[in-house]
């Protein structure tokens, strides 16, 4: 993936000057500048919530800037809608794909710019255009496949083709690698190189340093909505980029005392299961977690992690295999029974699974154990007891605002919502804590906070199963790491001995069979 690009530094395709974007009192972008040249890959680096996506939504006409100017090819443009952005030759591939699931690849690509013949759609021409453009950029797709039937990597190709079909000169890629396999990432970088050699420019939004080093020419760093610097990527190290991003020297480790793990809490044997499309996704998975141990599950999204957790917590039925907690069978049991047997979990999607946003924080705190004698009597809720319990938790876990017990959970910030879940699950004090991407979308402070409580559970002698797509998180927290690939555990190693290369290879299904 060498960078043999000739960036045309004389041709500025995009210039964003002093962009300010406010949401109410919150300043998401505070005087940000960005210059992109022809044929360049320009990375925008920042933490979650730094304002990268906001800036790009401004450029793509989805948000109107509060103030500031945008020049396209040297001309001042008022980009007030995506159509206008498309006219200006700007295209965007969103992090969450903007694809119509039951439509075909062709229909998705041409949507909004459909070729017509008289009053009817000319789907034959559309299909031909799609084939042509996909061949031209070396991105093979099946034009007749439905989106719901193709892989994530393929869907991303469709997204890129969609942008190219609109004749984009500048492509914005928002966190394009978030759910790709390493091979798909390599492939994506190839595609990006091919595009730039064709004279296109790419703006790459990411918080992954390695990808910036591998792909980008320049990098603009944004922190807390403010412009920090633009650097030539070959002049800086990853560490330097990282400290510019977070504003201090970061150490990627979590303080953790030595601890000898105890007896087995969770034991999964030869688990087979299907995903929501009835495709077999778990193909004989086995693992075990012991007391006082954090077992990290490393892997790319879509290799069976979601289904594994759903089966353990009772949301999904497995085909065969066994799951026990403290020796007791919980295979295909109901969620409540599994909870009672000693499993609590921090779900991946806090707003979908973790909280009832319209319930108060107090009501959310007892979501699993509202039936315990502590909180109800003959079917009547003990509201005072629930409130007292919640107020204690609010204090202990520093949930803000401090008087939030009777507020709807939906009114809290994302970080505080996650704190409510942590407080609830840690307070439940079960023998096994499952955490799935527990820090996704949180800022640095909140991430440290979450990590501290996960480690604390381990130190108290609980078993912790950590599933995360962030390799750094897995490596810094886990005592032991299992790598999941294609529905099986394909490798296991001690946390201390883990190194990224070996893990990365195994996560990509590389051979580790000695």
């Amino acid at each position: 993936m060498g960078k043999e690009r000739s960036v045309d530094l004389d041709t500025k395709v995009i210039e964003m000057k002093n962009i300010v974007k406010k949401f109410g009192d919150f300043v998401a972008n505070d005087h940000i500048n960005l210059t992109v040249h022809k044929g360049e890959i320009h990375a925008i680096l920042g933490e979650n919530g730094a304002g990268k996506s906001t800036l790009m939504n401004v450029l793509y006409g989805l948000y109107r800037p509060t103030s500031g100017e945008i020049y396209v090819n040297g001309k001042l443009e008022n980009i007030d809608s995506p159509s206008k952005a498309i006219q200006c030759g700007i295209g965007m591939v969103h992090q969450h794909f903007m694809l119509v699931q039951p439509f075909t690849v062709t229909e998705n690509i041409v949507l909004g710019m459909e070729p017509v013949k008289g009053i009817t759609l000319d789907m034959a021409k559309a299909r031909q255009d799609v084939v042509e453009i996909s061949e031209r950029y070396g991105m093979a797709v099946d034009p007749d496949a439905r989106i719901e039937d193709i892989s994530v990597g393929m869907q991303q190709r469709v997204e890129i083709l969609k942008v190219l079909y609109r004749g984009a000169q500048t492509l914005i890629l928002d966190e394009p690698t978030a759910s790709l396999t390493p091979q798909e990432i390599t492939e994506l970088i190839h595609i990006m190189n091919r595009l730039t050699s064709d004279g296109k420019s790419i703006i790459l939004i990411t918080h992954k340093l390695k990808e910036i080093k591998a792909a980008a020419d320049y990098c603009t760093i944004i922190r807390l909505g403010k412009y920090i610097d633009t650097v030539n990527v070959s002049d800086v190290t990853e560490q330097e980029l990282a400290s510019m991003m977070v504003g201090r020297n970061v150490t990627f480790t979590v303080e953790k005392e030595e601890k000898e793990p105890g007896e087995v809490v969770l034991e999964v044997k030869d688990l087979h299961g299907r995903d929501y499309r009835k495709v077999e996704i778990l193909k004989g998975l086995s693992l075990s977690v012991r007391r006082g141990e954090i077992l990290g599950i490393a892997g790319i999204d879509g290799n069976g992690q979601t289904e594994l957790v759903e089966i353990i917590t009772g949301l999904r039925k497995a085909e065969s295999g066994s799951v026990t907690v403290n020796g007791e069978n919980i295979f295909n049991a109901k969620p409540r029974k599994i909870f009672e047997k000693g499993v609590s979990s921090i779900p991946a999607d806090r707003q979908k699974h973790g909280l009832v946003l319209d319930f108060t924080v107090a009501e959310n705190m007892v979501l699993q154990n509202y039936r315990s004698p502590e909180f109800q009597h003959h079917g009547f809720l003990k509201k005072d007891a629930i409130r007292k319990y919640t107020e204690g938790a609010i204090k202990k876990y520093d949930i803000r605002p401090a008087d939030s017990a009777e507020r709807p959970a939906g009114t809290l910030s994302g970080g505080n919502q996650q704190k409510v879940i942590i407080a609830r699950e840690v307070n439940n004090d079960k023998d096994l804590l499952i955490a799935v991407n527990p820090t996704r979308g949180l800022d640095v402070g909140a991430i440290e906070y979450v990590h501290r409580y996960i480690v604390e559970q381990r130190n108290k002698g609980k078993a912790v199963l950590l599933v995360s797509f962030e390799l750094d998180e897995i490596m810094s927290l886990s005592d032991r790491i299992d790598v999941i690939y294609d529905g099986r555990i394909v490798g296991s190693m001690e946390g201390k001995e883990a190194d990224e290369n070996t893990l990365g290879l195994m996560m990509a299904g590389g051979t580790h069979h000695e």
Partner: protein
Amino acid sequence: MDSIINSLGTLIYATLIYTPPLLFAAMGSCFSENSGVVNIGIEGMMTIGAFTGAAVAYLTGNAWVGFFCAGLSGAFFGLLHAFATVSLNADQTIAGTAINFLAPGVALLVSKALFNSSDTPSLLDAKLPMLFNGVFDGTTVWSRFFKNIFNTYITSFLMFAVVILVWFVFYKTRFGLRLRAVGEHPRACDTLGINVQRTRYIAVILSGFLSGLGGACVTMAIMNQFRPISIVGQGFIAIAAVIFGKFRPQGALVACLLFGFCTGLKVVMGSNNVVSAQLISMIPYVVTVIVLILFVGRSRTPSANGKPYVKSR
């Protein structure tokens, strides 16, 4: 043998007579639901159309002017529904419920103001025309059979044209593609420069227009006047037909024909005294439930159906 052919003719006739109101409204519902707006106000929109059609036809003496105005009156309430649900992001079910009170209320109010009665005067010459009046003389068995079948109003044939037209719009035109996309993933459409709000407005107004026509099919063909009991639940049946037909126009056609056929069956069988007419009347609904359980099952609703689309700026 002759009597079987006779009954069959009557049955087909009855199906053709009772299907149009449902089918017009169902086509309307297809537009709205596929764009992502739940419209349970179809019932009310049919009622106002039923009244307007009969009233305008009576006053102008021209059936087609009446029929068209029926559509317009439905479209007006469609506009109201679109304003509430698309522009103001109102709860779609609640807004639809409001329409179901407002539109019939207005219909009866105007009827009383104009005609001093909740019934409109009978349409003598201003009913919708029959296409094949007098083509078959009914002297032979088969001639009688065809006379039976074709002894219906133009709406019975127009409805097939409308289904084909709606199908064409849905699957062969740019607007149709965008309409379905908006109902599935409005945000994606927004990023592609498709105007989600405008598309939904058009869809909901069209749903009102077609429902209005559906209502007029009752008062200008089946009956010859508007009465408070002209529209009693056909709008809901039309919505049910659309769900039954998995939100596709061709599916709704099948469902509406099934309803129409069962209603026809009721009319044909109602004349014998072996089985209670009330039980026979129940057939369409029982059949629907059974068909649903046995053959249809889970239906896939357009993903964004019922959800207001809020653009962030």
